[in-house]
């Protein structure tokens, strides 16, 4: 019985020592962020709108949504993000809309400016409008991970498949990176 207890105790001590070593080596040699939380973020400067955000997210409808940086928007009449290429008449009919779910809404402001707003409930992160806006306009439409929807998976399943590695883990304080605020140099300079 004594022998058994001894083996038991020393085994426990060894395993405990192993745990202490593992934790210690992580804490002292590497970095542990005590108060930090990390969330997933898309770098809009790297994003190339391949469309995988809409198919790879663990959610049936992706947690990635198109976000509109109004500060950057030119309020163009002919919006590359709203209209299909070669659109004949600039109206809101289904034949001219690029968005497959009709999530991008167009509203008249004043001659000749239009406001474009995203109905995030409908957005499925296909990125078509982002690509359209980026190639012809200012690039004010951007894909971002929405943290009210994101499950903050241990490993983002979109990040795994992202061809440009645009998705990375960032500290919670800077959860969003939306280009467009040119007063803030951190958001205008690609990393």
């Amino acid at each position, binding site marked *: 019985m004594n022998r058994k207890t001894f083996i038991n105790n020393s085994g426990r001590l060894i395993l405990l020592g192993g745990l202490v070593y593992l934790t210690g080596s992580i804490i002292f040699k*590497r970095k542990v962020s005590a108060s*930090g939380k990390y969330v997933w973020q898309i770098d809009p400067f790297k994003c190339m709108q391949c469309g995988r955000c809409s198919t790879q997210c663990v959610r049936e409808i992706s947690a990635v949504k198109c976000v509109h940086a109004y500060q950057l928007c*030119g309020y163009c009449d002919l919006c590359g993000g709203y209209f299909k290429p070669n659109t004949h008449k600039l109206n809101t009919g289904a034949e001219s809309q690029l968005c497959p779910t009709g999530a991008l809404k167009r509203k008249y402001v004043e001659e000749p400016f239009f406001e474009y707003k995203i109905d995030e409930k409908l957005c499925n992160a296909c990125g078509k409008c982002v690509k359209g806006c980026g190639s012809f306009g200012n690039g004010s439409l951007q894909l971002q991970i929405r943290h*009210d929807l994101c499950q903050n998976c241990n490993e983002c399943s979109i990040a795994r498949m992202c061809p440009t590695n645009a998705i990375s883990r960032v500290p919670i304080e800077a959860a969003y990176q939306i280009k467009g605020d040119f007063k803030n140099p951190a958001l205008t300079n690609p990393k």
Partner: protein
Amino acid sequence: MKWLKIILFLLPLLLAFSDLEAQQRFPKPEFHTKYTQPTPTTPEPRGVGMEFVDVLVLLVVLSLTSWFAIKKRSRNGILLLTVFSAIYFGFYRNGCICSVGSVQNVALAFADPKYVISLYALLFFLLPLIFSLFFGRVFCGAACPLGAIQDLLIYKPITIPAWLRKTLGFIPYLYLGLAVLYAATGTEFIICRYDPFIGIYRMNGPHLMIYLGIAFLLMGLFIARPYCRFFCPFGAILNVFSRFSRRHLSVFPTKCIQCKLCTTACPFEAIDFPDEEKTKPDTKSNTRRFILYMALIPVLMLAGSWIGSKSHVFLSKAHPDVYLAELLISHPELKTDSKNIDIQTFLASGKSLETLVAEAQVIRDKFYTGSWILGAFLGLVIGLMAMNQIIFRRREDYQANKGNCYSCGRCLDYCPVE
């Protein structure tokens, strides 16, 4: 640069802007009507404080389970905690981060100096292990959401032959080894990717994940807790740790009266029966076998590490960079395939194939180290598991097997001893 003509036309207007704003292709208009510009919506993520609430809840659940299992001897208490865990960690917290997956975060933090692990992920990894060293696998008993959902849906458990159980018990170690290897090399988190129950807890997810979950649950109606017993990599660690636990749930409170009532109580067949006289081994031949195994284990480890080092090539193909590099070398014609997004992005990035191959080679070298360690580990596990079958421990009572018992407390109600 056509638009520049427009800008030249608007030059006086533009000069009024700061030079930074001139970077826009189409300048923001100055509205004459009353128009307030909306701001982009950015819902905040869940705060850090809440993560520590999770740690606290885990701590409380673990402590309560230990108390219910060892002191209070209450199956109902543990059952309530199980339901609570399924609701809190499962349906409310959506199963992320869980202790099972945290193994990978720890492995990556240990291997990759650049990866920063958050403290609560580390605590989620450590707490169940520390508890298992003192009170057995109380984490599996009630705190684990993956275990909870299976535990609640056991219908008619069947008996699995011991030899099959023990052989299948090898899978968790293999899974653990691969998960650590892939996490440490920064390839992917396979435990999370193939987690069967997250999709169910979230009621949302890739359909394959949900099918896998449903399949496991259906299987679980008849084979109690199949994921826990035959797949869970964290369970493999807990199994080892729990064997050395200081205190552990006991089937009987004071003394076993050999009534055999508990023999059918455990759906996981984790109750060891006392040895019968006729099964006692021949000491001489057993000693010989033991010595044989002591010699065999190093051989197995060596063989394992050699095979592991040989296997690093195919194991590393799971890494996206290695995969891409090899694809470009083996199928150069794919470069013209405009549908292949990965290849087209790589070509557009301007990175040369040499650089990519060099990077892939670095990853493959990491895999070389990792694979031979994995091979040696698996050799050791095979050796120890086999040797364990000839080591004979004297048992007189019906008692829970410290390695396999989940501390679910079912057997407690079966014991007539007060």
